């Protein structure tokens, strides 16, 4: 892959909750327009990494830049899909309303969403195949539908960079395919996506880059260069079984009843 403009650069990032370090000296370079997976066992600090980049957690040390500038100057360029379980889905509101929240950043304080925001939200719902559900109360959605709503909400942010925390968690196969198609479209439009991912098997198929994280950054770079048995072993400890298959050179990896999220198929 040719050398590209850096969308995100993280240098020497250390984050601690109280005294306990959760991320140690993490370096990460994300070129513009790529799809990057962040993988690592539960509690590896994947969510923390995303939150620290987005200024939601104060790091103990390190630098973070988005297109060469600090995050707070670049908010408008960043879209966010939090972990689905991070909100209360019994909140009294409907699908359209939640998607419109993605526009609040553009609106700024006090100004209310109007026709234009509604149009954009409906357009985004169309893209994720949820247009029919715009008036649906959010507590009545399935897991996959909730994930699509969050995705639509990120799309209306019209960002350059998207952070997604476990976008495939608990979704059905159809939704997974719909999401990956969407990610490829974003990438084709030169948008950058960084997503926490659990299914090691699909990493080479879905993503261009991968960061292997377990408190420290074990490796980060193009999938074909860093997604190796050795690095995976370093990330997951001895808990991953491997099958090295002939083919396109990428490793076929099978998480044997070990890592969280998707188990072995």
């Amino acid at each position, binding site marked *: 892959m040719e050398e590209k403009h850096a969308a995100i650069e993280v240098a020497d990032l250390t984050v601690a909750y109280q005294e306990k370090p959760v991320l140690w000296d993490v370096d990460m370079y994300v070129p513009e327009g790529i799809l990057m997976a962040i993988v690592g066992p539960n509690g590896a600090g994947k969510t923390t990494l995303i939150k620290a980049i987005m200024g939601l957690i104060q790091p103990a040390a390190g630098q973070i830049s988005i297109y060469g500038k600090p995050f707070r100057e670049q908010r408008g360029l960043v879209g966010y899909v*939090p972990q689905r379980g991070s909100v209360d889905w019994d*909140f*009294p509101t409907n699908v359209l309303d939640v998607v419109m*929240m993605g526009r609040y950043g553009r609106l700024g*304080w*006090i100004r209310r969403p109007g026709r234009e925001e509604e149009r954009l939200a409906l357009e985004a719902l169309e893209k994720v195949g949820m247009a029919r559900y715009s008036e649906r*109360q959010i*507590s009545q959605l399935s897991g996959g539908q909730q994930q699509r709503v969050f995705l639509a909400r990120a799309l209306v942010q019209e960002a350059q960079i998207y952070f997604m925390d476990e976008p495939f968690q608990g979704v059905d196969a159809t939704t997974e395919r719909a999401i990956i198609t969407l990610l490829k479209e974003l990438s084709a439009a030169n948008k950058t996506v960084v997503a926490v991912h659990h299914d090691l098997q699909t990493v080479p198929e879905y993503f261009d880059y991968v960061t292997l994280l377990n408190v420290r950054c074990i490796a980060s770079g193009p999938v074909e260069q860093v997604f190796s048995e050795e690095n995976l072993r370093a990330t997951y400890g001895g808990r991953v079984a491997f099958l090295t298959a002939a083919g396109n050179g990428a490793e076929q990896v099978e998480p044997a009843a070990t890592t969280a999220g998707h188990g072995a198929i």
Partner: protein
Amino acid sequence: MSLTQIEIQLIATVVAVACALPGVFLVLRSMAMMSDAISHTVLLGIVIGFFIVEDINSPLLIAGAAVMGLITVSLVELLNRTRLVQEDAAIGLVFPALFSLAVILISRFAGDVHLDSDAVLLGELAFAPFDRLVIAGSDVGPVALYTMTGVLLLNLTFILIFYKELKLATFDAALAAALGFSPGLIHYGLMGLVSITAVGAFDTVGSILVVALMIAPPVSAYLLTDRLTTMLGLSAVFAAIGAITGYWVAHWLDANIAGSMAMMLGLIFGVVFLFAPERGMVALAQRRARQKWEFAQAALTIHLLNHEGTPAAAQENRVEHLSHHLRWQPPFAAEVVQRAQRHGLVERHNGYLALTDDGRQLARETLMLAT
């Protein structure tokens, strides 16, 4: 109705609605206990403010109370962040400490002023109309009506202006922060509002019952609607109903008005809790019963489908064998068969059950969903 009675009901209604509006966000943020703490600790702010300005009617007392409300919230969060105490335990530590300090200060140093502890705990709405606001020599109404209308307007204005920010920060604080709306600022703004409301409500309903006025109307409304705007409106309506009916109950029973208001609000909640059309206990029980029968009918069609056209069909699909094969009690099996027949899912041919086209389709669909 005498003028005094009308005035009392007006004050009660304004107090109740003023409490219910910020209460909606407290309920959605699971902060009921925090509001209880605030409504007590603001007393310490009033007492300290009183020692400084030595005037019980000074508006500075309200400022002092609001600051104390925010201090309460920060202390609880500080304790909680150490991860040594849970949030509810932190509230349980901070609130009695500050409140008891206030009570000690009052009984020790301010025994002769209006701050007596009975009034502090329960308030006395019945006396509120006797404190008149006199402007240029003419009586324009009870002071409490003006202060509480002021608080109500403040709450209404705050919620109208920052509706979008309150909604976002309550539903998804992380997104609010990422988009540049400081959820901390919104949080403390709301807590300041709760503190001011608590102080305002203090005189009339006392500190114990403020929490009931803040929480009961929103939780009732929550069970009835899927929209935040409707929840706000319904909460205000319930608050007003509770205030007025509460007044009359107190009148007939010769009881404390604030207490009767809280009781009526509790009653409203009880009724909603039982009979809310979708989320009430009765509706839930009905739905569960319906689902039980629907599930049983689906199981029956699947059983019949599995044996359809096999040699065992004649054996398996006899009505009296169902209870054995599906492990159903015979009366239950008979009821399921009867319902399935009524819905056109199965037909009975002299003792044997056969699927209709609809029944076959239901079985297939159920199996599809399960895989």
